[in-house]
């Protein structure tokens, strides 16, 4: 096709017109879209015809017994694992299956792992500073200046994660729960559109759980949040929409009440606990 014909074809966006870091297109509602995804490891089907849609600004909880494919699903979204078949879209413009991990991260998908890792010798403020989206090559980092707008951004996140009073304290003195919040704060510094949060309340006290619930619900609306959690009480306290995974596919979807009354769900998951 000649250049002229390409330009005359008006129903598509051309590569050279759409830079890789173009904004996520959420005009049609969903920010994340998984269709007919299949993954198998040595014959074991970890993900089996998975279909899942997350709307922009939504807070979604994903539950399911061990081996239901929750972590594998996260791995697919972040580009760590490639599915055998299916398609994964971020908004309606970005095909995540054609991108690598750093590109997906810079597109605005942040992931929090189960075990919090913060830099213990640095202060809470400095932890957030390092996580901030910036030019991370050697010389720009060496000559980086703390501009007022960066400071404001960090303080804003400090407010959100409720660690303002501990701003200049080393992260090493934080409690387990506070470290989890700091880790979420570090994710927020990268200005993600979609947050993937893996078991945020593991090992937390009741009180810390409550504050985590508050934090995650306050994020929804601005960011889309996907929470994978085992703790049913916690899920009940934050969930508007719950998706139950079982053997690599969606077993049920709906509000917590709908889901917990679903006989299938009770059989495979809640039944085990009851």
């Amino acid at each position: 096709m000649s250049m002229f014909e390409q330009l005359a074809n008006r129903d598509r966006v051309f590569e050279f017109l759409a830079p890789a870091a173009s904004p996520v297109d959420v005009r049609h509602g969903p920010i994340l879209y998984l269709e007919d995804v299949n993954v198998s490891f040595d014959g074991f089907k970890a993900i089996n015809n998975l279909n899942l849609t997350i709307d922009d600004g939504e807070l979604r909880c994903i539950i399911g017994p061990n081996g239901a494919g929750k972590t594998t699903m996260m791995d697919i979204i972040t580009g760590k694992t490639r599915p055998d078949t299916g398609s994964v879209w971020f908004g309606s413009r970005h095909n995540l299956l054609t991108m690598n991990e750093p590109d997906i991260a810079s597109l605005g998908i942040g992931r929090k792992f189960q075990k919090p890792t913060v830099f213990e010798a640095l202060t809470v403020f400095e932890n957030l500073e390092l996580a901030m989206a910036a030019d991370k090559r050697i010389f720009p980092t060496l000559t980086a200046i703390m501009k007022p707008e960066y400071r404001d951004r960090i303080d804003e996140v400090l407010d959100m994660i409720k660690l303002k009073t501990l701003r200049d304290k080393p992260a090493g003195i934080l409690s387990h729960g506070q470290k989890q919040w700091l880790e979420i704060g570090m994710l927020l510094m990268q200005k993600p559109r979609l947050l993937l949060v893996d078991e945020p309340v593991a090992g937390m006290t009741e009180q810390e759980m409550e504050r985590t619930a508050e934090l995650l619900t306050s994020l929804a609306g601005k960011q889309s949040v996907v929470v994978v959690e085992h703790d049913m009480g916690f899920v009940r306290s934050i969930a508007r929409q719950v998706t139950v995974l079982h053997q690599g596919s969606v077993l049920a979807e709906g509000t917590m009440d709908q889901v917990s009354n679903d006989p299938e769900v009770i059989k495979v998951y809640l039944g085990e606990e009851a």
Partner: protein
Amino acid sequence: MTSSQNWLFRPFQERSTQIFLGVLITALIVVTFLHLFMPQDSALHVSAYTVTLLGKYLCYALLAVAVDLVWGYLGILSLGHGAFFALGGYAMGMYLMRQIGDRGTYGDPILPDFMVFLNWQELPWYWLGFDMAWFAFIMVLLAPGLLALVFGFLAFRSRVTGVYLSIITQALTFALMLAFFRNEMGFGGNNGLTDFRDILGFNLRSDATRLGLFIATGIALALGYIICRAIVTSKLGRVSVACRDAEARTRFLGYRVERVQLFVFVISAMLAGVAGALYVPQVGIINPSEFSPLFSIEIVVWVALGGRATLYGAVIGAILVNYAKTVFTGVMPDAWLFALGALFVLVTVFLPKGIAGLLQKRKKAENDDDPATAQEATA
């Protein structure tokens, strides 16, 4: 810590830098004054011998600062920094050898004595250019810097860290020592380079030159300290600490850990080279024993004694240990290594953060007594 100032000016805002530079400059002035203006027979007179001895301590202090930069802030325990020190020293030594000219024992206008002795007919290619001071001074930075660049590139790219890296650095300096012991290398074999006459036209044996070298070393230490402080107070310094404590996590945040390590390592090697270059004209000799693994380990002991990740701790440690060494080896030479070992054990057990940790503790105690700061802490 998170100043909005230009990164080069940032160090001067730190209280520790101000105190350090103040003490260092005062010491330089006082020693100079006591050396020049006190009568020879006065108790306060500082002899040329003492001036040179102090200059040697300052060289060691700069070397210790270089080691603290990579060990304290980046978590790379280099047991081979003596290699960079010695390379800088050899570059300077080669310049000083060429300066001897035809005043050597054999009177050859170009070839150093040891080459005439070995029946060499012409100067090896790598000795060319060392008759020019500017070339030699560039090589003082370049030789250790290049070695660190190649070595670091290979090691950090393969993600060699921790004790394995320490062992490799140890092997590096040991290999270089064996190589420099060989006469065929053209660096004077186990005798090394010595019998220097003058530097930049000044007679090395005159008291004025010795004082000049001492002051130059003091200035080099101040500059080296400021460079290191500028790095550790920059965002890059905080990234270094992040690499030290959680390397994988830092990588996950988007920083190229191996490049951070390489950058800091090369800077540190160059500083060590400068220390070596200033050391050689003051002690009057450079030989392969500077490459010995034992010396490199000793440097690490200075830093550990003084306190890691403070920079000024490294200076205190280097000066104190070497002063103790001077005293001990004079009084009872056989006991020195035992004394060093005992000192190391005692400090590790009772002062895990070294002497600098003790200073910080006292300062903190003072601050806690101050109601204003105490209130701030609880607020």
